[in-house]
């Protein structure tokens, strides 16, 4: 098992606000890394930096040993290897479900439309959304939209999947249908980095849990180590608050 992703001393600020400072992280192949932490702790920013949607101020990002934080790198080529799913789904409203899924394979990877469609149909069938293939996103429930968004990012066969609080915009009933897809992907051996507030889910899928606060990882380890026997007082405090909110 190799390292798919390696972050070395990442620093990122927006104007005067320091969002990530001296953050390092290693993600091995076929593992799921779960980022937890309060809103504003830098989880989303970290994911956006990995996907090169934000540029970092210092440090290095390595994907399969290649430094992708190099300014000379072709960002489009790197992003092809990285799937990203957003909190707010971000499906393309003017395209049907199937068109949303086939756009990148056809335009980016040069797959024929026929092949892309059959890949899309297969994925939709697998996740129980085949009857929605010709619908427009606005007609779907939030859970269905997010599942389509996950399928869309899978259609390009990413090396690493980044999931940014994919259930935060959903009601508790819909959360489960989305999380079950993520569980399936974990079974398939997909390498993932995910930010989430669902602690129970984190316990189930995480090979590694990182607690972020103030732009750095204060505590990391297995789900049992971090979520059940936290050592850092800040982690204890955070988990207590999550528990009080009834999300554990």
């Amino acid at each position, binding site marked *: 098992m190799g390292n798919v992703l390696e972050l070395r001393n990442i620093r990122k600020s927006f104007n005067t606000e320091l969002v990530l400072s001296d953050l390092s992280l290693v993600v091995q192949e076929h593992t799921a890394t779960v980022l937890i932490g309060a809103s504003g702790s830098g989880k989303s920013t970290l994911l956006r930096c990995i996907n090169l*949607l934000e540029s970092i101020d210092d440090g290095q990002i390595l994907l399969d040993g290649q430094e992708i934080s190099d300014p000379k790198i072709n960002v489009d080529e790197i*992003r092809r290897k990285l799937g990203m799913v957003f909190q*707010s789904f971000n499906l*393309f409203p003017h395209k049907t479900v199937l068109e949303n899924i086939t756009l990148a394979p056809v*335009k*980016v990877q040069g797959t024929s439309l026929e092949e892309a469609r059959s890949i899309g149909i297969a994925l939709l069938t697998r996740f129980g959304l085949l009857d929605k293939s010709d619908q*427009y996103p606005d007609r779907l429930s939030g859970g269905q939209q997010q599942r389509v968004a996950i399928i869309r*990012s899978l259609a*390009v066969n990413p090396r690493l999947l980044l999931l940014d609080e994919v259930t935060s915009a959903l009601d508790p009933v819909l959360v489960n249908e989305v999380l079950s897809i993520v569980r399936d992907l974990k079974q398939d051996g997909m390498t993932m980095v995910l930010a989430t507030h669902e602690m129970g889910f984190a316990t189930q899928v995480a090979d590694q849990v990182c607690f972020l606060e103030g732009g750095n990882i204060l505590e990391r380890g297995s789900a049992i180590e971090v979520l059940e026997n936290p050592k850092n007082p800040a982690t204890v405090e955070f988990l207590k608050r999550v528990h009080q909110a009834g999300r554990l």
Partner: protein
Amino acid sequence: MTERINSAWSPSPRELERRGQRRALNRRQVIIAAASTSLVLGTLILILVNSPGWSVVKATFFDVKYGQEVFPTVIRGMWVNIQLSFIGGICIAVIALGLALLRTTKSPTLTPFRFLATAYVDIFRGAPLLLIILLVGFGVPALRLQGVTSNVMFLGTVAVVLTYSAYVAEVIRSGILSIHPSQRAAARSLGLTSGQTMRYVVLPQAIRRVIPPLLNDFVSLLKDTGLVSILGVTDAVRAAQINASRTFNYTPYVVAAILFLLVTIPMTRYTDRVIRRRTDRQSAEGVI
């Protein structure tokens, strides 16, 4: 959506009662609407017909026989307006789209063109159309350039296209800017280049959003094509004017106005319908 309607269902007595009440309510509303409409319109017509100058106005503005007589000349002029609008409209769409894309690009190679596009929009949006028509219509032939036509209809169209491209470019640009950055982020994260993102994700949504204001511009364009008459082109307004000044009967103006409305009103209704149909198909909001 996918649920099948149960065929065994028949409305309950309460539902039937409700439907009866709704029907009664509807009937009442129709009666009220009809009564209020005829009252308001009737009053307006009475005021018009009973005004002291009505007989004179009727004879000089609504002379049906004279209207029929001038109709062929006015409609020939109208054909000029329509041609100018459609040919100009196509040129405007192409140029405006280019300008809007140039103004929103971040590509370093295109930087000088971005500045030029901004300057172009500033100038042609700010200067009165009439001035541009005069400058192009009289200025270009005065240069006596080889191979450049002095056809006033052509030059007039060029002037209109120059000005309207600037307006339309700004409308399209505002549409592009109105698309949420998360759409761009989603497209880029899939590996689409910035050009592909614009072409397949941003622009289709932006254009849809600006169709109503663009239609507005198209109606203005149709009317503003009349301004090329100052170069000597006989459009509908000019044709009406010639006839009116010959006889001091102003019916040709009314004929021209009706012709303009006959083009613009169906066009507006048609576009509204197209937009509504698309919204119905793509959104779950329903008709509000």
